[in-house]
């Protein structure tokens, strides 16, 4: 931006603050305040129906570190995040490379790819539930690998949720990576071709390194999003069977909305929040150290 010295600069600053104020106020009221309040609630015993509200200090946290259900929910959440993000990244990269290679029916393909992204998660979960019900699902499809009732079988149910998430989010990943691919200058490819590099070698020596930054951003965005997974699991299995698909958000939700325990529920929510914060922080540390070494 040009830095014209101007007498209007003070005015401009004041106007700028005024123009930002409404958005800032709303964000403080509906995002910052609730998050801080949630942390505050996590130190309390708060059960609405009993009109019970008192400060218990670290009491909820003392319970948390001995709560086996919390640790299994944490494990499920990590598993869901790692597996779905990995699958989305691999599939997304394949989709992106295909779209970038000027395939036939490119416009149709790009429109179709947006369909899963636009579907509400709840609708996609219900849609997929039909496929996962085994014999009770879509008998006329006669797909034999679905003979198991995935949603009712521990070990299968979580993968059903992952499948829905992968279906819904791969397009987003593909589009981000495609945008990265489009930005790679043709000259790099020409140079690789001149050196007689095979297409596989070009991919690993040119494409992947240039994509590194956008890959990192994509992984972060997706991981933070997957870590707070709620809709898919809630609609598909409600955390079952036998809590084998219960993620942190679902456990916190049930504790608050069904158990009525807002204190401990907030503790679980805060724990989720801290995990997300740690992931974000770790990411920026890694990115920063990379920038420095360059």
């Amino acid at each position: 931006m040009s830095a014209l010295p101007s007498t209007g600069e003070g005015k401009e600053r004041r106007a700028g603050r005024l123009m930002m104020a409404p958005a800032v106020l709303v964000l403080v009221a509906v995002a910052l305040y609730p998050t801080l309040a949630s942390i505050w609630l996590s130190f309390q015993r708060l059960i609405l129906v009993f009109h019970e509200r008192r400060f218990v200090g670290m009491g909820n946290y003392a319970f948390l570190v001995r709560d086996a259900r919390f640790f299994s929910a944490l494990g499920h959440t990590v598993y869901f995040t790692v597996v779905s993000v990995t699958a989305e990244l691999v599939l997304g990269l394949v989709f992106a490379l295909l779209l970038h290679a000027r395939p036939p029916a490119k416009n149709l393909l790009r429109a179709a790819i947006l369909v899963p992204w636009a579907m509400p998660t709840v609708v996609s979960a219900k849609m997929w539930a039909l496929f996962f019900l085994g014999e009770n699902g879509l008998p006329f499809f006669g797909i034999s690998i679905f003979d198991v009732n995935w949603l009712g079988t521990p070990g299968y149910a979580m993968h059903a949720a992952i499948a829905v998430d992968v279906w819904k989010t791969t397009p987003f990943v593909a589009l981000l990576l495609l945008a990265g691919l489009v930005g790679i200058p043709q000259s790099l490819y020409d140079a690789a071709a001149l050196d007689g590099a095979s297409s596989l070698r070009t991919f690993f020596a040119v494409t992947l390194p240039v994509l590194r930054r956008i890959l990192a951003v994509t992984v972060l965005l997706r991981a933070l999003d997957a870590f707070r997974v709620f809709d898919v699991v809630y609609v598909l299995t409600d955390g079952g069977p036998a809590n084998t698909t219960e993620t942190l958000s679902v456990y916190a939700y049930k504790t608050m909305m069904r158990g009525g325990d807002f204190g401990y529920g907030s503790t679980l929510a805060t724990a989720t929040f801290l995990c997300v914060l740690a992931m974000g922080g770790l990411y920026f540390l890694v990115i920063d150290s990379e920038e420095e070494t360059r």
Partner: protein
Amino acid sequence: MRRRALQWLAVLAVLGFCVVPLLGQVVTSLLPAQALLGAATPSAWSLDNYRGALQGRPLVRSLVNSIVVAGATTFFCLVLGSMASFALAKLRMRGKRWLLGGALAISMFPPIATVSPLYLLIRELGLRDSLGALVLSYMTFALPLTLFVLTRFFREIPDAIYEAARVDGCTPFQTWWRIGLPLAMPGIASTAILVFISAYNEFLYAITFISSPDKRTVPVAISLFASDRIEPWGEIAAASVIAGIPLVLVTVLFQRRIVTALTQGAVKD
């Protein structure tokens, strides 16, 4: 030739991946209940499921609710967001990084971390079980989204145009209204689509803050479909098609805009 054939194969695979589950849903919605319950092949198509999905349930009402909530969220986000984004992109002032950084941080908050205080706040305000509660809470994710996308669009407007307006004596506010907004219209339209879709799809707040059936949004209505009877899959499929098709149409129609808006934030900068 071989390369082309391989590409076609890949294209068909990806098309199948994206569209087959939806087609399965459409097929299911058109099958009579008996075919779903066991008959190996469907013998006749029928619209019974659509009748069933719409009868005795406020599904149309839910659709209207969803559109009203998503529309209001989009409107407020664009008003607040376009003003703030313009200031962020074009005005000389301190603290800009803080707002964008803060918005980025907020967009990463897990919604579950805000749900209990928001619930208590909404109760205090007397907004429980009202669509207003949803519009208010949807700001938590919709406004940061608006800020990112719109700030980038405003940055693309050359500074020279803005400087010229300033020399002509426009205040920053007038510049936003007379020059920024009209020039950023394509960006505003793209942002609107993005925000609308994300609000239309929201589930956690909607299921927490709404209790009356006639105030439910579409995702909540569909998630609670089964509880009244034993898994009426055909009707669920019909309802899903009714809820999903408008979104699919919007998406296909505006695909270019959506892709630009979606990818802009992550790629540049």
